[in-house]
């Protein structure tokens, strides 16, 4: 097993100050994808980003990944400015995006090989496969695995680089409801073991509340952070706890899906 990190996380703090990003459409119209975003993420914190499409949550995540430069403001990881993609900021997409021509083991080993670290870190590939419960599937090819298993492999592939931050772009969006809840618990277990800072984009309110230390609610036009809600609950959490329903209601209200509130009617 990969040695669990002990004590509180010391690396993986992200600071976002006054970040702006605009895209220019082909017809010349300008879309404001992020307008003046500030956010501080503590080392080892679990953040979920939620909001309707067009609110800039994926843009913000990709900016942290360094995949596209921002127009203004600054992003830092542990005080160092983010200028481009790097292995210290792992990214997992909604689509597992495994390379179909490589088996699961080689897919996970991919980042290490690219950075010429495979030789010294060979054993870790197996350890991370075990961490995500795929230790017996190393020789299988992606098309032989279910969607959930492929996504576990994608997690292992990002984790093997020992990132200080793991960025998750709706990683469970394509999974069925039960696999999804299972994977949420899996992600929490990995997070508790690795103490990696997690920033996850989701548009599932339950998922956002269940996983996060803090839920960041974003809104479109202009794309901005509307509110940040702390979820001060011990883990493991219960999905049907009354506090949960209350937080869920609060989130839905901010997102304008609150509906008509009534007194509870117990007529079961």
């Amino acid at each position: 097993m990969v040695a669990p990190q002990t004590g509180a996380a010391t690396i993986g703090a992200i600071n976002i100050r006054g970040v702006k990003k605009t895209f220019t459409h082909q017809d010349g119209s300008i879309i404001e994808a992020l307008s003046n975003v500030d956010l501080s993420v503590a080392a080892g914190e679990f953040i979920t980003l939620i909001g309707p499409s067009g609110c800039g949550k994926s843009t913000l995540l990709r900016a942290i990944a360094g995949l596209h430069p921002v127009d203004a403001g600054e992003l830092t990881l542990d005080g160092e400015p983010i200028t481009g993609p790097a292995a210290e900021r792992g990214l997992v997409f909604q689509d597992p995006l495994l390379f179909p021509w490589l088996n699961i083991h080689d897919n996970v080993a991919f980042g290490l090989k690219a950075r010429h670290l495979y030789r010294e870190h060979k054993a870790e590939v197996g350890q991370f496969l075990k961490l995500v419960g795929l230790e017996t599937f190393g020789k299988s090819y992606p098309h032989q695995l279910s969607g959930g298993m492929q996504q576990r492999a994608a997690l292992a592939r990002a984790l093997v680089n020992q990132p200080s931050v793991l960025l998750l772009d709706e990683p469970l969006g394509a999974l069925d409801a039960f696999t999804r809840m299972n994977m949420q618990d899996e992600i929490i277990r990995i997070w508790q073991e690795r103490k990696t800072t997690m920033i996850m984009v989701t548009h599932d309110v339950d998922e956002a509340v269940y996983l996060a230390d803090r839920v960041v609610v974003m809104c479109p036009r202009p794309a901005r952070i509307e509110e940040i809600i702390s979820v001060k609950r011990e883990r493991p959490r219960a999905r049907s706890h009354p506090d949960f329903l209350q937080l869920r209601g609060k989130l839905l209200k901010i997102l304008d899906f609150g509906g008509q509130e009534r007194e509870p009617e117990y007529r079961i």
Partner: protein
Amino acid sequence: MPHRLSGLLLFPLLVGVWAFVAEILPPQSRYLFPAPLAVARALWESLGVLWQGTVASMMILIPGYILAVLAAVLFGIPVGATTWARHFFAPLMRVAAPVPPTVYVPYAIALLPTFRASAIFVVFIGAFWPVFLGAVSGAATVPERHRDNARVLGFGRWEYWRRVAFHAALPAIFNGMGVGMAMAFILLTVAELFGANVGLGHFVQYYADFADYPRMVAGIIYTGAVTFSAMTLLAQLQKRMLFWNI
């Protein structure tokens, strides 16, 4: 019987039609249209010469084809994966690729010192363009998220070409290699019709000049069998390397 084997039934059927047509023709036309049995006899008698011809032809085809595939892949992957290079070479590809490479044959024979060198050159040209176009389009159409993913995992340019773009382009490269193989055979036989004194194309040309049509037809059928074997071999290689592409 599986569907893929049912196609083999076509061959005895075609031979039957051929035998029938040869039978009903007037006797004076028979020497122009030899019957299957006469061709089979000619084929049997010529097997030694045809084998020598095969060896000579392969000494041209194999180096020309392999060089073409190597050059096309080594050059095509970076060009396809780089936007400016793709635009830079697009006009050349549009002009040069559709030129039937057979037009180069007489000039290549005049230009290069030996027949073998010129024949290898035209085979190279014929096989290069289809594989090159396959590699370029394959490397250009790698899903953007695969590219992002490679960047996030810490890949440099060269690593990306070698470990991602090449593999992602392989299906397109193999399509190009199939077309390129057919082109290579066409150019090989055309070049041999022009200037060889040995080889499969030369065999056909030689007996056509002597009006020995059973041998000429035997040469054509034999060449067809060689082409078929080469294509089957390529298809096997493709199946083996692209097992993941389903």
